[in-house]
């Protein structure tokens, strides 16, 4: 089957790849672009491990067909740090031990970034609901919520 040529901007760089039309954007990013930071935990939009930002909106890349990405601007966890300087969320996740196995971490970071971009001063409840689409089985969420609160505080201070 002929493959479709897709042009996107990924993590600031214009990026082209070929894909079969029915392939998920997640698999295209992982297999064709070589960005394996987004993970597949379910493939059905229920766990959020594949979360990325598409045109500044957080979405499950497993639920997007790869051709839908044509012409979009994508941010993955690999593009979250600014040329080596960690994003405050990344720093706060590290300092707050907000990860154990780490498989869900990329998705949480992207969902949390989307939240803080929209709402710089969320309540604990708002954080919990905004991250409800991201499953973590290790931490019980406690330290993740605290890390997001800490990052929000830090980002407001800047």
């Amino acid at each position, binding site marked *: 089957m002929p493959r479709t040529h897709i042009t996107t901007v990924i993590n600031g760089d214009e990026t082209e790849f070929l894909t079969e039309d029915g392939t998920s954007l997640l698999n295209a990013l992982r297999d064709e672009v070589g960005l394996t930071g987004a993970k597949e935990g379910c493939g059905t939009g229920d766990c959020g491990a594949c*979360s990325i930002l598409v045109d500044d909106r957080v979405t499950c890349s497993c*639920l997007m*067909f790869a*051709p*839908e990405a044509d012409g979009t601007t994508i941010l993955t966890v690999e593009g979250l740090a600014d040329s080596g300087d960690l994003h405050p969320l990344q720093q706060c996740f590290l300092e707050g031990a907000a990860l154990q196995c780490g498989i869900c971490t990329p998705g949480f970071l992207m969902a949390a970034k989307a939240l803080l971009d929209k709402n710089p001063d969320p309540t604990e409840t708002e954080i919990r609901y905004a991250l*409800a*689409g991201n499953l973590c089985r290790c931490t019980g969420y406690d330290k993740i919520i605290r890390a997001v609160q800490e990052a929000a505080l830090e980002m407001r201070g800047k």
Partner: protein
Amino acid sequence: MKYVAPSSVEEATSLLSASPSAQVFAGATDVVPQLRAGRPAPELLVDLKKIEELVSLKSDDNKWTVGAATPTAYLTEDEAFSHEFPGLSEAAGLIGSDQIQNRSSLGGNLCNASPAADSVPAMVVNGVRAVVAGPSGTRVLDVSEVVTGPGQTSLDDDEFIVEFEIDNMPARSGDAYLRMIPRTEMDIAVVGAGARVTLADDGSIEQAALALAAVAPTVIRIPDAEDALVGTTADDATLDAVAAAASEACDPIDDKRGTVAYRKQVAGVLAKRAVLIAIERAEQRNGTN
């Protein structure tokens, strides 16, 4: 599967007419899991999001128009829309996570034709109309006429919904939607209840609409409950009658998400609670709309 993204309604309808195995989609939040679960793959995937009318949210003096593929996040983020239809906005906002909200749409939620669709009871009680495009032009359907059974709609294979029209909320009116799920998020409604009331000058209920999800093959209206409410101030006896009528009207199934007995009982509870919220909202909008 071949992916196409038509840029006009006409282009889309002609693609659909030409292809016997085509699947239209907006956010694909239902289509992708269904394909993974083994549903036969269509030859053509028709992405409706590149058609301008389908992704839009606008209002005039009389009504709101919502593009059928507009992400539900756009609705919940729009303060004017959410002020006008708080129940519908909340119902739309319950469809999955933030990740899903940026993809899911009223058109998709309706046409997926799940009995448990959250936005549908809220659309039904608000009298939402669907503008349907097909090869011979457009037709307008009441939202309650679209779904005919689980996974079944009254639309032809070469038809799709372009947009929804919603008349502005009358004065002294309010809507509400509640659903019961075991968790707080990321679940399919075990029972959903949408309500809308309009109050008379004396504070009694002049008009009432009540619709339930996940308790029958399609979303259902509860005329007995609506009749019971009209002319009352929703005193305890009336609310008990509403709950009884709601439970009575249910024709649910036992499945992995709930039992018949549970659904019938909780349908009554949610019906009551949704009506009370709608009344409270109607009172708050008393004369200030």
